[in-house]
């Protein structure tokens, strides 16, 4: 018995020593995104962003390597993402989870990682209160309130909108987004005259009945939130088909309605749309131009990046920062959170930082307009708001002010 104990002690000591000696280590991370079904293009964009970062920064981890295990979350809802996370944590024993396109995906993962203490880097899901659901989560993408408040204020102050109708896809970030819009818009004297839930995120509805309803209310502005992906083109098309511009109704929203990958397909319907967002591929910074060039070299000139791709790219940068901090030892949540709170990065979208208090992103928000140039649709930045924090958490409104774990 004594001999056995002694031997195990030696074994344990040996493992500790090898780890301490920062041997090359393979970090297994889980990536959850929609890889099939209606939102597959979003999963593909996000994965492409992550892979591009890995390709361009191969040497940044020293001798350590990353093994990315991809799991399909299929639908915008929670259960499949949750099962995927559970499998990644318990069977694959991943040390970090990333990806997560839709808010319900991220929300369903929170209780799991609260038990397993697995760090999570959210690459997209934007419902504002998500990081409050787990102390192990950081978000590199955006919050609905960042763009929502700014476009609301801009509409009331600069776009001559006195009344607005707000249409939204009926799931958590949709409600979040119109609350943010109302906060900004009514704060500057505007009035939201109708709120129209426009179906769920799972399938693109025919927007006609909803937009006709909005039209019958005769507002100055129509604010629309839809999830990234296929919804956007349908929004612009319906707006045009119903001659709403002629009726004096201006379409505005967060940049989801002018997502770069969807933009060219919208045709003339998109010209003149004003949005607030943290990224579009026409940003003039050197970082962005290098990024767009690298992206197109990798994935083809006809496959532009968009904010989902940038989310993947920046998310992977954050993962790298966490792994560098662990430097050969196990990547615990404590190490990851310490490394990422206050983490700064020159992203293609501009300088970003993780707020050490809320673990949420601080970034620039751009007011942009869509114009036609040489047969192509482009976005032009009209105004830049620097280092925007999430207002909902600053003001501690509703769930934003609460600890949800």
């Amino acid at each position: 018995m004594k001999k056995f104990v002694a031997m195990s002690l030696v074994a344990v000591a040996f493992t500790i020593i090898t780890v301490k000696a920062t041997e090359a280590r393979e970090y297994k991370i889980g990536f959850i995104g929609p890889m099939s079904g209606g939102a597959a293009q979003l999963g593909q964009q996000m994965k492409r962003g992550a892979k591009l970062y890995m390709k361009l920064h191969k040497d940044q981890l020293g001798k350590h390597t990353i093994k990315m295990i991809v799991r399909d979350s299929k639908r915008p809802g929670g259960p499949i993402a949750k099962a995927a996370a559970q499998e990644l944590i318990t069977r694959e024993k991943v040390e970090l989870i990333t990806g997560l396109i839709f808010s319900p995906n991220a929300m369903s993962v929170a209780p799991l990682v609260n038990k397993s203490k697995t760090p999570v880097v959210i690459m997209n899901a934007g419902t504002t209160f998500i990081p409050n659901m787990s102390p192990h989560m950081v978000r590199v993408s955006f919050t609905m309130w960042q763009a929502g408040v700014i476009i609301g204020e801009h509409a009331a102050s600069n776009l001559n909108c006195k009344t607005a109708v707000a249409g939204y896809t009926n799931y958590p970030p949709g409600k979040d987004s119109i609350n943010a819009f109302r906060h900004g818009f009514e704060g500057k004297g505007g009035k939201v005259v109708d709120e129209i839930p426009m179906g769920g995120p799972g399938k693109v509805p025919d927007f006609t009945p909803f937009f006709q309803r909005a039209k019958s209310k005769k507002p100055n502005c129509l604010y629309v939130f839809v999830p990234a992906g296929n919804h956007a083109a349908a929004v612009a098309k319906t707006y045009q088909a119903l001659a709403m511009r002629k009726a004096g109704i201006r379409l505005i929203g967060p940049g989801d309605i002018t997502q770069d990958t969807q933009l060219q397909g919208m045709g003339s319907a998109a010209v003149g749309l004003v949005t607030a967002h943290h990224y579009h591929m026409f940003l003039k910074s050197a970082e962005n131009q290098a990024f767009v060039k690298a992206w197109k070299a990798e994935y083809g000139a006809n496959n532009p990046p968009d904010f989902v791709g940038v989310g993947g790219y920046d998310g992977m940068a954050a993962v790298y920062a966490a792994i560098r901090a662990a430097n050969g030892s196990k990547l615990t949540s404590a190490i990851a959170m310490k490394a990422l709170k206050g983490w700064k990065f020159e992203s293609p979208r501009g300088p970003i930082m993780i707020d050490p208090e809320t673990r949420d992103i601080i970034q620039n928000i751009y007011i942009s307009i869509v114009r036609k140039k040489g047969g192509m649709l482009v976005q032009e930045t009209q105004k830049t708001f620097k280092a925007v924090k999430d207002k909902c958490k600053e003001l501690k409104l509703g769930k934003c002010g609460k600890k949800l774990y």
Partner: protein
Amino acid sequence: MSPFLNEISTVLVFGLAYAMLLFIISVGLSITMGLMGFANLAHGSFAMMGGYVTVTLVTQSGVPFAAALLISFVAIALLSIPFERFLYRHLYRRSELDQVLLTIGLVFASIAGVTFIWGPDPQLIQMPNYLKGSVDLGFNTFPKYRIFMIIAGAMIVAGLFYGLERTKIGAQIRAAVDNRTMAESVGINTDRLFTWTFALGSGMAALGGGLGIQILGGIKPVFAFEYLVIFLIVVAVGGMGNIRGTFFAALILGIIDFAGKFYFPEGGAFVIFAVTILVLLIRPQGLLGKN
């Protein structure tokens, strides 16, 4: 210019345009189910294929929209014949479960197939100029495309009714739906009749798939599943195999669906299901179906 007239005309015109689309796609499904007693869940796949053929012809080959619709009608009708001859035929006398398993498998295969070729993004087309823009009727404005949809739908409905009620082949189809054994014993070749009817139904679905691109926000791989439920509802409410019933069902459901979403966006998507349940409680065989 009264708001009331504006709202009513909005609901009627947009609802009618949607109803026409529902009818054009569902009628083929109704015939296959009524005539051959075959649960063809892959019907939506034929509609989707029609949409993709139309999109490809218009955007890649520059074929005019109307011609592309006709070509896709013919192409998918022809394509469906080998499916009927070599696959479906063997399952006519098998259980519904077998039929459902085969056709749902085809749906999966078709979704994977079009995703492989065209990718997961929805494919959109630019409309020809005569279908762009809108018509101002004084009390309300309507997109030209919806008006076109209603007119095209009305023509197709009229053509189908004429064909079924006034021609010999129509009489044969009706006879075979009513009593197949009897029809065969008076010398109708029901096998061949099935094949042609099936091809016609699939072609109609393809036409609907092409016409729907503009209304349903583009054509995409999940189309085959997303709209299957509504097509089945139209068939069930109308009564299987009854074209008149399918038409009324499409009309009622199309208009009610639009009105529901227009007046009660919060729960509007469910109105159509409530109506379906109600109709089927009172008439389980559908509006005009036979017991």
